[in-house]
């Protein structure tokens, strides 16, 4: 039987039938720049930082596996006369970031003051150092630099 299968090229025709069946199926691909998939709600994308919520505890910097978060702050007296930490610098060396999300996990504030669930994934740039070495202004005002941009607040997508 297998001899006759061979002589009659059944395997060959079977394969051809298989691919031929796909000839008229709809393509499964997405034409990227025009169409884009919506990332899921938990998608780990570009950083966001809420300066108001941040308590400058630097836990995110400590927890970062590759040490790419740099935080400086100083104490200032506020109107109430209390000492308050003021951020000088909140830098993320984004080109090394591997988007593991451990900084977000480490953040003790509720809701989180640093988070990655932002659905922004188009982070390509032409200049290696300038565009990706982020300072706090770029982080907090990211939406002015890259559009379209949606932010999923922590808690929404869980």
């Amino acid at each position, binding site marked *: 039987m297998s001899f006759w299968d061979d002589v009659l090229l059944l395997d060959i025709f079977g394969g051809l039938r298989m691919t031929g069946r796909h000839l008229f199926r709809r393509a499964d691909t997405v034409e990227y720049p025009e169409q884009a998939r919506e990332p899921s709600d938990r998608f780990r994308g570009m950083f966001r930082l809420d300066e108001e919520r941040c308590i400058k505890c630097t836990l995110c910097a400590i927890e970062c596996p590759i040490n790419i978060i*740099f935080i400086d702050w100083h104490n200032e007296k506020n109107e109430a006369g209390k000492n308050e930490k003021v951020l000088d610098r909140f830098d993320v060396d984004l080109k090394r970031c591997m988007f593991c999300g451990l900084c977000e996990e480490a953040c003790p504030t509720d809701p989180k003051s640093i988070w990655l669930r932002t659905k922004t994934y188009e982070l390509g740039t032409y200049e290696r*150092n300038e565009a990706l070495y982020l300072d706090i202004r770029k982080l907090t005002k990211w939406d002015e630099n890259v559009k379209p941009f949606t932010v999923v607040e922590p808690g929404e997508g869980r």
Partner: protein
Amino acid sequence: MAEDAKDAPAAPAAGEPAKPGVPAPATPAAAATPKATPAKAAAPAKAPVPAATDAASEPLVVALAAAVPGAVVSAKKMASQTTIGIAPGKLVEACRHLKDKETFTFLVDLTAVDWKERDPRFDVVYWLHSFDRGNERVRLRVGIKDEQACPTVAGVWETANWMEREVFDLFGISFEGHPDLRRILTWDGFQGHPLRKDFPVEGIDTGAAIYPDRYPEGGGPAPDDKNRKTVS
């Protein structure tokens, strides 16, 4: 060889997994008292913390000690895994015995641990598996001094070939009688052995640089940035 065999029992640390070695920078307290007491578990209380227990009465250990006299230096059990300390001079003999008589035909893993300040400095660790004994596994451990050659087991298990090359490459332990002892992961001509504790994590200057004229080194924060963490 005979000297090695004599040395090993004199250095009880060779068989002591539980001994705190080099302190990790973050926990200086853990390394404050480098004692050789085996049962000293550094982690604070949690209910079922596995602790090392003596395993000298295990049948396998007894059988090995009887078959290859002088081979067994110590025997510990932790997390239900048996570790047998072996004298370097008796290693090949013990391995042959375990493979041929005790059916440990499969060398799962071979690696080394660098206990920087201990003598002997390195532990070479063998992790054996037996299909015929109900998937039993046993770990062998050999204390090797710096600059001392470890006998090769590539003649016992062929798979030890690359693993020993890797240990040679990353720890600088040479294996006596190895058929093809060359560097395997780093390139030929690389200076140093990366997994030794005294090798800097930041790496060493090998003369290779990517566009040093265009980009600052590393591209990140300057070396004198006070936020820049260095770990070693």
